[in-house]
């Protein structure tokens, strides 16, 4: 436990010692602000019965931030340590592979959640000027943020896995972007294509990330979605631990 906490603190701290961390936060805050401006402009043009959180996902900004932030946050986790050699000093201290993977994952996830705080501010500002307080229900906000965190959790796990496999940060970034974008394309496909029966249909309905997000934004917390994200995240973290351990089988 002590090793896990120590490692998580260092990992989280290292996001903020370089300009990269702040640049990522600034870029994400900018995109979130932009998406809210666009949304509000649309709402002024034509009123809609849909909750505003759901409309948020219909803008491309959410997916853009997710796709771009994942590689940038996760690429350095393992790849940098392996390239600089500090992985050797790390793995010769009495820490387990699981502790290392979980600490790095936790740090990445915490940073990712921090990225989304500006949009919470946007919601509060909007609420201040809005006439109907029911338009922004706290329960709705909570389920929306649960969705954002679950989806982010899965993408961070993908990024961890990619970083553990890669030898350089560039390779890690490309690999995690490819993995994340593949998932995104599959979910895009499931909205456009109808496949009758077979494993293809099964696959496409399961990975419909956009549908999942819509459910969360409507305030619908579906247990199937929870299981989907949590199990997939656990699976990729398990794979990451195996990759880190593989040094000891060679």
């Amino acid at each position, binding site marked *: 436990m*002590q*090793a896990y906490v*120590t*490692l998580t603190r*260092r990992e989280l701290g*290292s996001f903020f*010692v*370089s300009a990269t961390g702040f640049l990522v936060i600034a870029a994400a805050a900018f995109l979130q602000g932009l998406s809210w401006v666009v949304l509000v402009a649309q709402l002024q043009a034509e009123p809609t019965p849909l909750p505003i959180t759901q409309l948020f996902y219909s803008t491309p900004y959410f997916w853009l931030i997710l796709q771009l932030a994942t590689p940038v946050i996760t690429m350095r986790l393992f790849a940098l340590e392996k390239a*600089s*050699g*500090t992985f*050797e*000093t*790390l*793995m*010769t*201290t*009495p*820490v*387990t592979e699981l502790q290392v993977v979980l600490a790095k994952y936790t740090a990445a996830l915490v940073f990712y959640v921090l990225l989304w705080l500006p949009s919470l501010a946007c919601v509060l500002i909007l609420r201040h000027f809005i006439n109907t307080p029911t338009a922004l229900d706290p329960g709705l906000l909570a389920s929306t943020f649960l969705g954002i965190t679950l989806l982010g959790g899965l993408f961070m796990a993908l990024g961890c896995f990619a970083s553990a496999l890669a030898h350089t940060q560039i390779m890690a970034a490309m690999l995690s972007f490819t993995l994340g974008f593949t998932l995104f394309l599959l979910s895009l496909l499931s909205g456009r294509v109808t496949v009758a029966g077979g494993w293809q249909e099964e696959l496409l309905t399961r990975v419909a990330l956009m549908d999942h997000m819509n459910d969360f934004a409507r305030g619908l917390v579906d247990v199937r979605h929870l299981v989907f994200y949590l199990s997939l995240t656990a699976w990729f973290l398990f794979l990451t631990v195996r990759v880190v351990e593989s*040094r*000891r*089988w*060679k």
Partner: protein
Amino acid sequence: MFFIRPPAGLVAKLPLARAMSDGLMIEVSNLTKRYAGHTAVSGISFAVRRGEIVGLVGSNGAGKSTTLRILSGYLPASGGTVRVAGFDVFAQSMEVRRRIGYMPENNPLHPEMRVREYLKFRARLKGLSWGQTRQRVDMVLQQCGLVEAQKSVIGQLSKGYRQRVGLADALVHEPELLILDEPTIGLDPRQIRSVRQLIKSLAGRHTVLVSSHILSELEMTCHRMVILHEGRIAAADTPDNLQALMGGRGQVVAEIAASQAELQAAFDTIAEIRHADISPVAGDFFRCALTPQDGVDLRSRVFNLALQRGWPVRELTRQRHTLEDIYVRLTRVEEEET
């Protein structure tokens, strides 16, 4: 295999020295490491006693770093067993890792962290409590001469200081065994000296296994040396015994002011001198290179001779083979055999 025993009283006083029947810190037997395509280490065996400082010497690619990485538990062995403080490095890796302080080659550090912050992080990672951490970090900062640099960012430190940070990290949890891979590489002579002194000061309290490709550097620090060549042990002994291994003690060189004929005649009367080589040098002096019979030290004989005859002497030394010579000779023999 030959061991140098540290003074008996010293070992008994060690807080960390556990009562072990054999007193061995490292036992390597038949260690082999194969990478895809080539064998880095093939069937080496050696042992290190508690409190000893042992040097691992070899040219680049001789298998030093591979051996140390296996000892530290970072890499698995392809064959053979390695035990540290009685624990198997692979099966009981955690027990071993708790007991070693390992500084890898090139001393990787986190360049964005400050010295004190880094050492605190490492101490916590190695399981020290907050109180212990504060105490030990203060201590190693002092021990490694880092007190003034403790607030500096590691990436901005000079190479010498970074090396000290690496050493401080290896020492911070008071490990029983220190494994240092090329700790003096890339340092200037003064820094090398301070690192050497630091390592020497650890004798007795810690067992130290240190590698280098420069023999003369370890000659002064180590109780014993293991010379690796192409993944095999070419020799393992004390520096003195390695000297003796070269066969016969070194020549004695004397610069004496006398005529050549007198000198030749005088040396002929001494039976222990097998061969005398006399050549004129600047001034009235002659340089006499005297090859003795095996194991005889000619210096006092030559001195007494000069005293009797009233000859001025301005130099009298016995030449030692440098370990460099020994190393070159050992590895050459090996090559001729294969």
